[in-house]
């Protein structure tokens, strides 16, 4: 039996997520909840046989016994208001906003640790795209400092991201440390307005100590790429990992060398155009997390 769930937020993210959840075997998407009666997302939901209600979170709370899992696709401040109400009625949450109320989760890195958490956070698109690489390197060698540069097409960055760009860089930096396992982290975000829009690009730099094993580091990165591709098919390295000899005076102390991984993310184009790999990786990762939580719920029940 699949687990009944709802999406709160009928904007771009919520709508792209809807298409992914509709394909899931373990998640039974039943409703998309919004606040705008004229929302295109709600109309699409109804066209796909779902409840598409503009009555907001109140509707969901009134129907709480029909659902087990909620995907929050609103904004950080809205989620902060919604979270206590979900908790009160026992709804589990996969949070796609940067509210970061629950533990940060990256599917191939730490999902298993948080399957029972009432609320898990999907961090940022840059965090989802780069943390798997940092964690892979940190699994074979000490990483005193990791740095990422995430570049997205201007058209794919909404007003929420734009007005809160510090939130992106800070949340992503801390994720490189908390989830990725680096000792220090730094994240940089760039918006590129080129037409036609560019695919999402990410560059991951990891500082390496003396005596690192180049083959082991490269292999770990390629393994992580393959693992992410299982849920984000458009995720790929544009070149073999590049190793540069230092020394480098990093914030994590002097490093003998560094490895650079160059990553491109092409979106699956469920609702967004393919260039918006940054949005696709969020909804794909959230789907993966939701499915794992649903499987866990089924296990507990069985």
């Amino acid at each position: 039996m699949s687990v009944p769930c709802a999406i709160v937020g009928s904007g771009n993210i919520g709508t792209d997520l809807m298409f992914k959840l509709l394909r899931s075997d373990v998640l039974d998407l039943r409703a998309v909840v919004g606040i705008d009666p004229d929302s295109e997302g709600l109309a699409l939901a109804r066209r796909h046989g779902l409840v598409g209600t503009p009555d907001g979170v109140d509707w969901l709370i009134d129907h709480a016994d029909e659902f087990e899992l909620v995907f929050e696709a609103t904004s950080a401040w809205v989620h902060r208001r919604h979270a206590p109400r979900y908790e009160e009625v026992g709804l589990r949450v996969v949070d796609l906003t940067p509210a970061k109320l629950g533990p940060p989760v990256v599917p191939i890195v730490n999902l298993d640790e948080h399957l029972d958490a009432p609320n898990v956070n999907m961090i940022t698109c840059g965090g989802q795209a780069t943390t798997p690489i940092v964690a892979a390197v940190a699994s074979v060698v000490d990483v005193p400092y990791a740095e990422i540069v995430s570049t997205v097409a201007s058209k794919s960055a909404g007003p929420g991201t734009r007005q809160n760009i510090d939130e992106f860089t800070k949340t992503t930096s801390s994720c490189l440390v908390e989830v990725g396992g680096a000792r220090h982290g730094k994240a940089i975000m760039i918006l590129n307005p080129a037409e036609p829009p560019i695919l999402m690009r990410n560059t991951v730099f990891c500082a390496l100590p003396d005596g690192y094993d180049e083959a082991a580091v490269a292999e770990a990165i390629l393994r992580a790429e393959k693992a992410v591709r299982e849920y984000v098919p458009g995720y790929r390295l544009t070149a073999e990992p590049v190793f540069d000899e230092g020394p480098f005076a990093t914030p994590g102390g002097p490093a003998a060398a560094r490895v650079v991984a160059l990553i491109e993310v092409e979106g699956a184009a469920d609702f967004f155009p393919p260039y918006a790999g940054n949005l696709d990786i969020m909804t794909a990762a959230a789907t993966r997390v939701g499915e794992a939580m649903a499987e866990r719920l089924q296990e507990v029940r069985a």
Partner: protein
Amino acid sequence: MTAAFRLTDSTLRDGSHALAHRFRIEDVRAVVRGLDAAGVPVIEVSHGDGLGGSSFNYGFSATDEMELIRVAAEEAQHAKIAVLLLPGIGIKEDLVRAREAGASVARIATHCTEADISQQHIELAKELGMEAVGFLMMSHMIEPDHLAEEAAKMESYGADCVYVVDSAGAMTIDDARRRVATLKARLDCAVGIHAHNNLSLAVANSLAALEEGVDQVDGCTTGLGAGAGNCPTEVLVAACERSGYATGVDPMRVVEVADEVVRPLKPDQGVIDGDGLMLGYAGVYGSFLLHARRAAERFGIDTKEILLELGRRKVVGGQEDMIIDVAVELERRAAEAQAAG
């Protein structure tokens, strides 16, 4: 006599690119002491890519920029100390710390089409009691009307001045003139120009901007800065005085700072070689130059080819990581061409 415009010297910020972010405490003291005595009203100090720029991607600072800002503020008797911040690289906490270290002018820089990411930082600058300056990088990439719309956003957030920034040194005299004139016509706040010398037009573009009534002009002593360099402060001052624009700066003293303090740091500054010219010609962000040279050496390819490819890809300021991507790609193409015989 009052000055016709306000001069900001960015040797200790844009010049940081030319020295791979290796300014020392004693360099900062000497430059600030000299420029302050010469009457330069604003001196900018930061990592070349702004606060928080110290990184793998842009190069690590040899000395903590907060320490450099503190020393500059201590040394300056009259000049205000400015800092640069690029949202996405630097964060609000960096600006708070710079303020505490003695900076009083916050220059918030975005790519010319992305002014709306500067709102939080411009507002914070005003809350901190700082002067806020909006800095629209790569202004050559969009038409004057579009640039004015973006500039108006920065003004609406509280900017006291918005700059036309020719980060690629790609503007012709007409390009600079039209952009400054349009901003002057549409904005109530002050307008500035920041010119680079890749096409040897930095001083000419600044003079054209002055003819259109620009309020603030940037220079770097000896031109020390990204790419082929900036508008050389001492040349600008001399040319302005001869053109009848009072600068409030003593031309002989600023020439002294150029020759005795700044030139020894990089004696070949001012030469526009093929690589520097290529930035202006291809419209590529000036600070890519040294990174592209290093990648060219590392992968055995031509710097100019890297810069031209970056221009074709329409990369923007901050995308230094794409230099590695392009170099790897060019190396692969070269290997394939060789294999094909």
